[in-house]
């Protein structure tokens, strides 16, 4: 066996470039698997541990003002383990050196004990002294974004008056792993901060002594969550309870979930592509090798090596290639995975990171790689196994070329004989040619998949913010106000146009489906906050009934004309029925809109507004910001233009890394496919090509035979790759669809073009590397040896 193993090493070192090309393709698959599964597990474990250690709650509810005594009753609900009641208020911040107003959320910390739920991880400093309304803890990213150290000061408008606050502690919270400000699409730590203050101090500021407006619960193991939520809703309803919800509707948690879902999708979609391509490469390379080594195989059998011994020799060869791929892939995947997990930790603000190095992932990688390689080599291995030793001593019959292309056609006669040779080669093995094209098309598809998100997200932003929600900012009152309050806002400097709005918390029910969704009241003929129909054309809001977004329609199984039960969770808390009168397009969140007058009438209690969309004159922006920072009636501000800019920047940053990875991956696939096919063609037609050289054809002319075949294959791969890429993109977006956002599938022509240019260039380079061998063909040797 030792000598046979020596042959193995020599064969490997002779075939190194082809073996490496295959191993690299395998490595991409393994790397993606290790990366995605590793990051998925690390992120999941980290989140779970963080939630456990810092006691992240499981059920959440808000009220306007509930008495402290209620907590005892809530704690008595069957299945409830722990209750934490606190005060949470939105605040407007005024930070020295910051042009625009920031917003924040101020949360109470119990005075003489640790919170039992949603505990803080203290990075620095201490908790505020009980009763001190000027000492606060802030979240770390907010502090970092402003360069705040312990002792730094900033101002906040709290219950109508501006107060100066001093930072005594910096912390992280399991509730705000992903801290999204009002109206923001991605976290912007500069414009949104979390502020913790002593409970008694905060209660004093908001006249909430002995009361709370925010609840967190943890349940006993095996508790019926739905039943708990129902009973909780009943208990807090009299106190302005706005509907309890579980973790899956908690914004921070839901965003983490969607991130985890993306990793899971990645680990399931991408590796199989690479494994498929590598299996195909193993197939063509091993088939050719076995064809070339027929006589050696026959000899080994003739001298007494068993058929399995000989087969295992080739099995070892592909196992070595696969293991090389696993080795490279596991190393790269681990490295990238650490990078990605760290990126996550930075982005999401975890206090610690649990790197998961699950040996099972690596075992899985070894398993699937070997499986793919063996599957790819199965045909060739079977022929090794079954090759009768006597037959192996005879050369195989030359391939029969069919006259696919008639020489009599004028068009064909115009082509040179060399081009026709290329065509015939291509058509002699149509399946292999097609599979080669398919393999190369994966390279194109991956690139489309990598780049299309820019197109789709650009389109989503354009539709959502240039055509639908066209305001520059939305100002939220601290409390609901009569419609006249809009007048005060309209007179602010720089406000060009203003549209008052009212949002009411509600639970919508249709059959057995129900959902907490706020209903947005919009004025008739709204021009800033517009709705778009399914073709993205502006829509007139119906005078009565609900207009619901397509996604809400799907969630609640609603169609135009269906009756919906609306349970208002504020105001007079009416329960009414109203029909769906319109279905519109919306890519973000769950949107239900209604004509404002109709909403006022349905909810009862007279007309009210709580916010206003505004169009702003840029020239007076500073003056406007300055006024807002000192306006007691304003609770929070959503600066849409900044939010969109931040969204674009974050997405670009996040996609940039994956684009870089995918470009390398697709170049590797293109190289692996083209290089190996070219080598195999050279090996198959070496004699023929050398004969052409002997007949006096130049290297460049002979190259045309190879180039015709390769070129046609690579060209065929382009449209195939576009199609596949479009399909992959569609599947990916379907997988990412969530209540938070749905991305429309848009692929710009330039994306297809870029994908093709990259793949064509990579193919050209790999073909050139092989063509250099054409110049080195040993004419005499080729002609002397028998085929």
């Amino acid at each position, binding site marked *: 066996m*030792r*000598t046979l193993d020596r*042959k193995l090493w020599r064969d490997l070192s*002779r075939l190194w470039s082809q073996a490496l090309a295959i191993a690299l393709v395998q490595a991409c698959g393994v790397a993606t698997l290790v990366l995605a599964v590793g990051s998925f597990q690390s992120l999941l474990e980290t989140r779970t541990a963080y939630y456990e250690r810092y006691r992240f709650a499981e059920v959440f509810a808000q009220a306007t003002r509930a008495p402290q005594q209620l907590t005892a009753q809530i704690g008595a609900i069957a299945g409830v383990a722990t209750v934490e009641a606190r005060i949470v208020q939105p605040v407007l911040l005024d930070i020295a050196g910051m042009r625009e107003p920031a917003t924040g959320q101020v949360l109470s910390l119990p005075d003489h004990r640790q919170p039992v739920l949603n505990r803080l991880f203290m990075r620095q400093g201490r908790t505020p002294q009980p009763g001190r309304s000027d000492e606060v803890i802030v979240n770390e990213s907010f502090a970092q974004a402003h360069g705040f150290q312990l002792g730094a000061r900033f101002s906040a408008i709290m219950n109508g008056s501006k107060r100066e606050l001093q930072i005594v502690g910096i912390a992280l919270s399991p509730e705000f792993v992903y801290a999204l400000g009002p109206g923001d699409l991605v976290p912007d730590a500069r414009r949104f901060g979390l502020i913790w203050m002593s409970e008694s101090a905060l209660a004093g500021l908001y006249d909430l002594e002995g009361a709370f407006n925010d609840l967190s619960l943890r349940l006993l193991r095996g508790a019926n969550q739905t039943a708990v939520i129902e009973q909780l809703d009943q208990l807090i309803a009299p106190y302005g309870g706005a509907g309890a919800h579980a973790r899956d509707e908690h914004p921070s948690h839901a965003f983490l979930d969607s991130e985890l879902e993306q990793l899971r999708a990645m680990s399931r979609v991408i590796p199989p592509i690479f494994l498929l391509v590598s299996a195909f490469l193993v197939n063509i390379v091993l088939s050719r090798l076995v064809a070339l080594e027929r006589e050696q195989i026959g*000899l080994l059998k*003739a001298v*007494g090596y068993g058929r399995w011994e000989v087969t295992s020799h080739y099995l070892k060869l592909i196992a070595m290639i696969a293991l090389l791929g696993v080795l490279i892939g596991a190393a790269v995947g681990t490295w990238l995975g650490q990078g990605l997990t760290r990126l996550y930790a930075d982005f999401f603000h975890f206090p610690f990171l649990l790197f998961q190095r699950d040996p099972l992932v690596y075992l899985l990688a070894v398993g699937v790689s070997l499986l793919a390689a063996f599957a790819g080599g199965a045909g060739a291995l079977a022929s090794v196994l079954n090759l009768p030793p*006597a037959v192996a*001593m005879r050369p195989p019959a030359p391939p029969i070329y069919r006259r696919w292309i008639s020489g009599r056609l004028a068009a064909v006669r115009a082509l040179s004989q060399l081009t026709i040779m290329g065509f015939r080669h291509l058509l002699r093995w149509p399946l292999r040619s097609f599979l080669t094209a398919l393999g190369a098309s994966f390279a194109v598809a991956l690139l489309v998949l990598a780049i299309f998100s820019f197109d789709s997200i650009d389109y989503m932003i354009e539709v959502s913010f240039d055509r639908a929600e066209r305001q520059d900012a939305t100002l939220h009152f601290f409390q609901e106000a009569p419609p006249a309050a809009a007048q005060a806002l309209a007179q602010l400097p720089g406000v060009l146009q203003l549209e008052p709005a009212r949002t009411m918390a509600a639970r919508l029910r249709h059959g057995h489906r129900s959902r907490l969704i706020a209903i947005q009241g919009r004025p008739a003929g709204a021009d800033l906050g517009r709705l778009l129909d399914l073709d993205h054309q502006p829509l007139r809001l119906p005078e009565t009934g609900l207009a619901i977004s397509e996604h809400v329609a799907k969630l609640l199984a609603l169609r135009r004309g269906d009756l919906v039960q609306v349970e208002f969770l504020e105001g007079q808390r009416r329960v009414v029925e109203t029909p769906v009168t319109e279905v519109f397009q919306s890519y973000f969140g769950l949107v239900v809109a209604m004509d404002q007058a109709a909403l006022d009438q349905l909810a009862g209690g007279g007309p009210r507004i709580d916010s206003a969309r505004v169009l702003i004159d840029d020239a007076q922006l500073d003056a406007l910001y300055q006024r807002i920072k000192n306006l007691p009636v304003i609770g929070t501000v959503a600066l849409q233009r900044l939010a969109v800019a931040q969204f674009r920047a974050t997405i670009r940053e996040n996609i940039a890394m994956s684009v870089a990875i995918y470009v390398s991956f697709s170049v590797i696939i293109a190289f692996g496919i083209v290089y190996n096919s070219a080598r195999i063609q050279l090996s198959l037609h070496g004699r023929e090509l050398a004969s052409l050289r002997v007949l006096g054809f130049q290297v460049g002319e002979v190259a045309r035979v190879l180039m015709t075949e390769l070129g046609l294959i690579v060209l065929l791969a382009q449209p195939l790759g576009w199609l596949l890429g479009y399909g992959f993109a569609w599947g990916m977006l379907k997988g990412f669809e969530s209540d938070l956002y749905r991305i429309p599938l848009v692929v710009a022509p330039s994306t297809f073009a870029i994908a093709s240019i990259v793949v064509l260039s990579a193919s050209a380079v790999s073909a050139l590397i092989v063509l250099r061998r054409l110049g080195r063909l040993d004419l005499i040797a080729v002609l002397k040896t028998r085929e």
Partner: protein
Amino acid sequence: MTDRAQPVFVARGVTKVYRSGEVEVHALRGVDATLYEGELAVILGPSGGGKSTLLNILGGLDSPTAGHVRFRDHQLSGATERELTRFRRDHVGFVFQFYNLIPSLTARENVALVTEISADPMAPEEALAMVDLDHRLDHFPAQLSGGEQQRVAIARAIAKRPEVLLCDEPTGALDSKTGIKVLEALTAVNEQLGTTTAIITHNVEIRRIAHRVLHVADGVIARLEVNPTRVKASEISW
């Protein structure tokens, strides 16, 4: 010597039919043949006559369609693939027209390939010395001439001290001078080790070195000829 020697191979009524699609080729049509202990037999005949088919069946590379083949007390006809592999490994040395060396192994390694799976082999170096190649141990096939490659193939065949040496046109790809060196190596092995040797050829001149000549044509043994006037390989030429 042929009179009293023990038979090594006995073939009776051996036929071989190849089917490729519609066409049936009767390569052997009832061959009776015997090879005796220690003899050097030349199998002579025109191309396509069935010589290789016969040799492959004797060597356990192929099985007859009908008839019996016995090697000493092993029944080869009807043996399983495993048994045939075992038989080739333990008893037979092959030499082929196109040498069939493994290009990625050196001369020494090509021989070691076989000695590693043999029960009582000689050292690869010793086998190569017997064919005068002890100065070419670490050369790869591509660095050797055709004659040298064929002598490596002979060294590979004899290194396991086989009981029989089956050579299919060993000089077919060689010029006369090199061919004779190869035949010298084969006759030397036959004489020194007493290995029963069968050499296929279509070259009539070569029959002069044989103890016996089996004339094969059209799938049958047309004629058996005992050669009373054996000459040394060095004395013939073509």
